[in-house]
């Protein structure tokens, strides 16, 4: 069956069935809906299938296409447009399926519907071939994810959700402004065919002319491009625009954070990959994110905030790859996003299970859980090894493509930073998370492993982490760029010239990681957990601006208010009271009580003043 609507809509609309079903039927529907979506992506949309809709006056929308940028080379360099729809659509649907399995025990009635709207719109974004459909589903994601954040039950959840939705709506407005600034000249230019089509908005392959914001330039689209980029980087979690991520994610429920970790930042990666591939600026943004995530994660005490910072670190690798912009780098960014969603969800499922069974989230309250939570521990460790890109895990077969691309392009800065960040990942997530949660200090906690459905979800993703590590070919085969592959090779070898499991590659990676591990255990006394948080850029809108308002702006306004109310507003009342005929003879009736004689004196005085005035004139 061929469908003529974006497959993500199955999830978005299906979400509204969930409130009407109960018990085992709800569980069945919860897992079947995303599984059906995944099936639709693979079987119901043939290669080359395009759905267009007329829109307003002579415009058109393209809600379904496998090639969002078309299939013809664009830009002066003949850039072959990436088609990352299959790899991103597949992982989003897979994530929604296993995530739903993990959250079958979740009792909050609104979280899973919110998560389905969120995941479904993310899938719709990957199928959008025009900028407007992309934007609409982008915003729908913000709404769905806010419902997910608010399903948490912590004391800070509501406020964090408010900040989360505010940041995302502001980001959405910036993105929309950029889109309009870019689209208007296109729409008014009669020579432009299909002005909403995404390829008009792809900046990277055009040598980034659009980014030139030179002084005195009358080029409006330059500003539009910057606004679009900023709007996307807000969702990508790039500092200083990304403080919402470690702020909001740990405040969601034990299942909610699993969903949140997957879609927002990776949809931003997808859109950057489509629109800004090869933008040099992104190399620096990515490197910054990779290091920032590590430095903040090392300081963090909340186990899920450690993992939230490591999302920023991992997305940094992908964004760096997008900035490098070669076919190998873009394949690497896509593959890494695929692997990352699985192992990050696995880590957060492990942390979520700990939270669910113990009610505790701080490393200073946890430890010693290896005694009674073996499944949770082993799944957490497999996720930790995968995020660290240990050989025979998914991180190794995907992240290497990005670092190899940096080496092939001789971008030394990026290569050295990514290598240091790879070592740092093992330090801050790979060892730190399992060590402080499952080992180190025995707090006497003896919780069991979580319910079967939650264990099953973890085991499936742990299995996939290893499977993609030893048998990455199915993933390689759906990456955006396919090249001719010789007998006995895979895509990795065909593109880099060396197999992913060469002796030197494996040894180099093990050396890097194991000595990072040594550094961790030698510095362990220094890494003692403390009851602290680390200020991030959200300090600006949580402390600085409110403080500015309370202590600097509000006091003079209060004085002005006193003047306004006391003088401007009340003065006419007093004056009126002075002269008004007052029937009950109370208050200000001075003029009424005056005698005729006094009135005569007053009038004479006024006449005298008038006379003097006339004389002087």
């Amino acid at each position, binding site marked *: 069956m061929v469908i003529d609507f974006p497959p993500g809509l199955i999830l978005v609309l299906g979400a509204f069935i969930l409130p009407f079903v109960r018990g085992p039927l709800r569980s069945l529907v919860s897992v079947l809906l995303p599984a059906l979506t995944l099936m639709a992506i693979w079987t119901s949309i043939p290669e080359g299938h395009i759905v267009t809709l007329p829109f307003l006056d002579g415009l058109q929308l393209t809600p379904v296409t496998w090639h969002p940028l078309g299939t013809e080379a664009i830009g002066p360099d003949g850039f072959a447009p990436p088609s990352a729809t299959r790899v991103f659509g597949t992982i989003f649907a897979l994530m929604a399926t296993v995530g739903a399995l993990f959250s079958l025990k979740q009792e909050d009635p609104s979280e899973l519907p919110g998560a389905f709207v969120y995941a479904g719109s993310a899938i719709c974004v990957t199928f959008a071939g025009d900028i407007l459909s992309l934007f609409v589903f982008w915003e729908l994601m913000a709404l769905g994810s806010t419902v997910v954040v608010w399903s948490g039950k912590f004391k800070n959840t509501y406020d964090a959700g408010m900040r989360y939705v505010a940041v995302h709506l502001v980001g959405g407005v910036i993105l929309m402004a950029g889109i309009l600034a870019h689209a208007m000249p296109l729409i008014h230019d009669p020579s432009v065919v299909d002005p909403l089509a995404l390829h008009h908005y792809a900046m990277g392959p055009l040598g980034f002319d659009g980014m030139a914001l030179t002084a005195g330039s009358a080029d409006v689209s330059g500003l539009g491009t910057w606004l679009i980029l900023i709007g996307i980087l807000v969702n990508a979690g790039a500092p200083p625009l990304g403080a919402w991520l470690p702020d909001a994610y740990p405040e969601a429920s034990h299942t909610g954070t699993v969903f949140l970790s997957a879609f927002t930042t990776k949809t931003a990666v997808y859109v950057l990959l489509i629109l800004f591939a090869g933008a040099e600026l992104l190399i620096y943004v990515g490197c910054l994110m990779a290091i920032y995530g590590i430095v903040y994660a*090392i*300081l963090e005490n909340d186990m899920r905030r450690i993992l939230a910072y490591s999302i920023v670190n991992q997305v940094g690798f992908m964004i760096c790859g997008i900035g490098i912009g070669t076919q190998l780098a873009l394949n690497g960014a896509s593959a890494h996003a695929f692997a990352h969603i699985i192992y990050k969800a696995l880590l957060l499922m492990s942390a979520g299970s700990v939270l669910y069974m113990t009610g505790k989230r701080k490393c200073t309250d946890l430890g010693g859980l290896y005694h009674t939570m073996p499944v949770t521990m082993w799944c957490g460790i497999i996720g930790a090894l995968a995020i660290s890109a240990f050989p025979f895990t998914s991180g190794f077969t995907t992240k290497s493509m990005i670092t190899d691309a940096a080496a092939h392009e001789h971008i030394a800065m990026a290569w050295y930073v990514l290598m240091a960040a790879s070592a740092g990942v093992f330090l801050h997530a790979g060892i730190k998370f399992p060590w402080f949660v499952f080992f180190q200090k025995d707090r006497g906690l003896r919780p069991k492993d979580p319910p079967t459905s939650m264990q099953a979800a973890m085991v499936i993703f742990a299995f996939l982490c290893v499977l993609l590590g030893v048998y990455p070919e199915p993933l390689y085969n759906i990456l955006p760029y396919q090249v001719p592959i010789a007998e006995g090779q895979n895509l990795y070898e065909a593109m880099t010239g060396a197999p992913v499991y060469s002796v*030197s590659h494996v040894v180099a990676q093990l050396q890097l990681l194991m000595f990072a591990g040594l550094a961790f*255990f030698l510095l362990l*006394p220094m890494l003692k957990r403390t009851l602290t948080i680390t200020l991030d850029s959200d300090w600006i809108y949580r402390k600085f601006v409110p403080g500015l308002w309370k202590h600097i702006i509000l006091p003079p306004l209060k004085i002005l208010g006193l003047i306004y109310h006391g003088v401007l507003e009340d003065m006419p009342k007093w004056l009126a009271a002075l002269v008004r005929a007052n029937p009950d003879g109370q208050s200000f009736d001075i003029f009424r009580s005056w005698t005729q004689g006094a009135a005569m004196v007053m009038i004479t005085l006024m006449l005298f003043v008038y006379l003097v005035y006339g004389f002087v004139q």
Partner: protein
Amino acid sequence: MSENKSLVEKMREPWADLLEQHPQGVKRFWYGGGLVLVLLAAADLFVHHHHHFDHVLGGYDGKPSFFWVYGFVTCVLMVVVSKKVVGLLLSRKDTHYDGD
């Protein structure tokens, strides 16, 4: 000597519970880990790494010992910068934002 002793004590502190419950396991972990590290470092005598950059760190990236030295040094640097610089400047009690 007293300073050395306190360093050993500091090193043992995070392991206190594990040392009590599984002293053999901890021993195996450290000896086994140490052996793996030595073998990995020694592997550079036999394994040739690719070299990419001539003008950075004197072209060190393809030479023997690069990966393990680089992994160790950068991690120590990141921990020290994180704990001693960023942490000193930006750490607050985790109740910092409460009551806003």
